[in-house]
């Protein structure tokens, strides 16, 4: 069985950033990703990013992916990349099983960084399995990777940043976005994203959700319903909207399964999207030499995932005896960046979640 120094599971913004820092610190790195190309969700992001220069603000997500990937080039002697490789299991004896090109094999890791990201939450309503009903991520994959339109007339459910951004991308691709439904009483994502949609004629319907989908072989129309303050249906407010696609964007949840499988200590934090690993200050989980960063430790923006990836890479390397030549400067700078990204009103939920996670991680 092959034995590797540091295995990073997931080549999205967090995993790529962690890889770069760990390579700089002198480690040999094996980066495993299930997709054809590295970059995670970044490769589907055609919009310019928020944040500051250190997180590549005003650069389009797809271009950030290429920057992060190219940043690894100079270390290719010590970097081993497995693409189209799905990590199926993580065991307590540091054995990782991988499925790639119809082969299932084992590798042994000395240390691991789990950066598996997140998956989309689903929404329960009648006929939600009709063809034409997608998650927002699937719509992005279809449109932005493969150039396939999800439909002609779409309704979006969810006004978080993903719902708003994907709606805008659909308009750019020539799709008619007929409405955006939001169950809460206000828009969840950045208002500048919402304003872009509204001026292009997309009505945002707050306190409204989808109750039922209709269609013989595929989606033909939906029934919406208004919600009261406890998010219960208000009978008699049902309205129909004809559409051939419905896009669901009601939040993300950390992809914790590998960590849970290794019986790593987990905690449920609603504000961070679900089950996350209890972490020490150096991003180490309850299993020695297994670290975690990015959305798998709590749902945030990609900007934070990149910074967290670097920080986890830096601290993990140190714990493994590889001290980065600019350790102190980098640590201070990265912590400041993370605090800055999280300190505004949009970071309230994240700060609350992180506090809960921290209190419970030190007992």
């Amino acid at each position, binding site marked *: 069985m092959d034995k590797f120094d540091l295995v990073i599971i997931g080549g999205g913004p967090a995993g790529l950033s962690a890889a770069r820092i760990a390579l700089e610190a002198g480690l040999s790195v094996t980066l495993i990703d299930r997709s054809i190309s590295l970059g995670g969700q970044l490769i589907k992001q055609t919009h310019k990013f928020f*944040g500051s220069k250190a997180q590549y603000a005003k650069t389009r997500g797809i271009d950030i992916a290429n920057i992060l990937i190219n940043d690894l080039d100079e270390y290719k002697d010590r970097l081993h990349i497995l693409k189209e490789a799905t990590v199926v299991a993580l065991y307590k004896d540091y054995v990782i099983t991988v499925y790639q090109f119809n082969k299932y094999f084992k590798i042994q890791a000395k240390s691991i960084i789990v950066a598996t990201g997140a998956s989309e939450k689903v929404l329960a309503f009648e006929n939600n399995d009709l063809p034409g009903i997608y998650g927002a991520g699937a719509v992005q994959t279809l449109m932005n990777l493969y150039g396939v339109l999800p439909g002609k007339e779409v309704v979006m459910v969810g006004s978080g940043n993903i719902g708003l951004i994907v709606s805008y991308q659909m308009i750019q691709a020539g799709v008619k976005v007929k409405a955006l439904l939001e169950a809460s009483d206000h828009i969840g994502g950045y208002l500048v994203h919402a304003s872009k949609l509204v001026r292009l004629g997309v009505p945002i319907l707050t306190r409204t959700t989808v109750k039922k989908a209709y269609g013989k072989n595929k989606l033909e129309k939906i029934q919406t319903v208004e919600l009261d303050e406890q998010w219960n249906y208000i009978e008699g407010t049902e309205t129909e909207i004809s559409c051939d696609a419905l896009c669901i964007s009601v939040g993300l949840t950390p992809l914790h399964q590998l960590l849970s499988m290794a019986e790593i200590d987990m905690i449920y934090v609603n504000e961070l999207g679900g089950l996350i690993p209890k972490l020490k200050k150096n991003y180490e989980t309850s299993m020695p030499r297994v670290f975690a960063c990015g959305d798998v430790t709590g749902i945030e923006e990609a900007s934070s995932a990149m910074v967290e990836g670097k920080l986890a890479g830096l601290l993990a390397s140190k714990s493994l005896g590889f001290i980065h030549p600019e350790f102190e400067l980098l640590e201070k700078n990265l912590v400041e960046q993370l605090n800055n990204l999280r300190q505004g009103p949009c970071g309230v939920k994240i700060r609350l979640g992180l506090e809960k996670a921290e209190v419970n991680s030190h007992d």
Partner: protein
Amino acid sequence: MIKVNGYPTKEQVKTKFPKIEKLVKPIAIIECYQEIPCNPCSTSCPVNAITIGEDINKIPKIDYDLCIGCGSCVYSCPGLCIMLVSIKEDLAIFQIPYELLPVPLTGEIWSGIDRSGHQICEANILKTLKNKQSDRTVIVTVSVPKEFLYDFSTVGCKL
């Protein structure tokens, strides 16, 4: 309310405009109504007219006297919430960021759209600009009747 319907009131819009006398030359109007972690407008300004500060969540402040109307912030804003505005006789001239196809062409007349998505006027396309710095965002220069100064937000379709 912008938190609910996604667009500001006219009173809110006016708070982002300088006194009308200042609009003899193009000035950046920054329609940022919410504290979000973002500062490219400030860091892209070549004359330091836009200030956000250490905490990148703060709402940008612009010094209209320093603004040279170069448009760097217009294509640097990831939220597409900045435009340049000036007044020439009875016309309001806007330079807006635009990311849809087809791109308007000089000389065409397009529908002028307000912040709630309604058609309010005709807009004359004066110029379109796209360069390496603007990174695939097109800057469209349009003129509309001056009375729509606080209402016009973008162009809809060719008329």
